[in-house]
């Protein structure tokens, strides 16, 4: 696979956008700007390579449906922020890390193995909710819930795209 080049101004633009969006929703980019920008560069490389922002620190399959859970921000970010103070690749960090109260490091992988992921597929909502006037959709990334005919185009909280929503109720 050939090396992909990314221009500095593309990195700067995306870094600025992600930083703004994160701060507006209570998330934070890694204050180590050089480290964070390297990861933003990697997201841009993966966008050109796969067509989506596959996590820079995970091996993408290249099949979007199989990689949905690791498209940045990944399904595991928020749980890792709570438990470890950063997401897996450490693009995002917690308030404690931002304030220097906690250090970031390499953390264990939360993503289940391919076999475990396959087993989890197809779990339809089990609660009887026939009385609800609308279905409830859940953002797998940040947990945002909304009751409407279909999920929103983009999560208003974490900016994850429509395909990251699941039927919750």
């Amino acid at each position, binding site marked *: 696979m050939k090396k992909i080049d990314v221009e500095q101004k593309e990195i700067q633009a995306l870094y600025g956008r992600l930083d703004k969006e994160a701060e507006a929703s209570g998330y934070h980019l890694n204050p180590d700007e050089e480290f964070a920008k390297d990861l933003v560069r*990697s997201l841009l490389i993966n966008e050109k390579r796969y067509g989506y922002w596959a996590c820079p620190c995970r091996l993408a399959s290249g099949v979007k449906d199989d990689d949905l859970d690791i498209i940045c921000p990944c399904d595991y970010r928020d749980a890792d922020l709570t438990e470890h103070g950063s997401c897996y690749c450490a693009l995002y960090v917690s308030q404690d890390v931002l304030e220097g109260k906690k250090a970031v490091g390499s953390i264990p992988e939360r993503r289940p193995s391919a076999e475990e992921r396959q087993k989890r597929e197809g779990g339809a909502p089990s609660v009887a909710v026939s009385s609800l006037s609308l279905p409830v959709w859940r953002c797998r990334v940040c947990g945002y819930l909304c009751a409407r005919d279909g999920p929103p185009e983009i999560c208003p909280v974490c900016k994850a795209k429509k395909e990251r929503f699941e039927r919750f109720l």
Partner: protein
Amino acid sequence: MKATHVKGKDRGHIFLFALSTCGWCRKTKRLLQNLGVAYEYIDVDLLKGKEKTEAEKEMRRWSPRTSFPTLVINDEKSVVGFDEARIREAIGI
């Protein structure tokens, strides 16, 4: 697998499974460079088809969930993740 060789002091066979895009893999490569040890690495995301599948299979022996970086020393022990203290200990520096 076509691994890239980095010259340095011989501290046994040090092999790194990495991703070209990963920040922790970059830090691991930098650490090994700073320690001045000879090592080999492979950026698994730059492999294709059969080569990629083979690298993943080999990697699973050391890191069942194929987490990056995975450092293998003398084909007998491994360090998964960027953990400077554990890497130094495993190499014996």
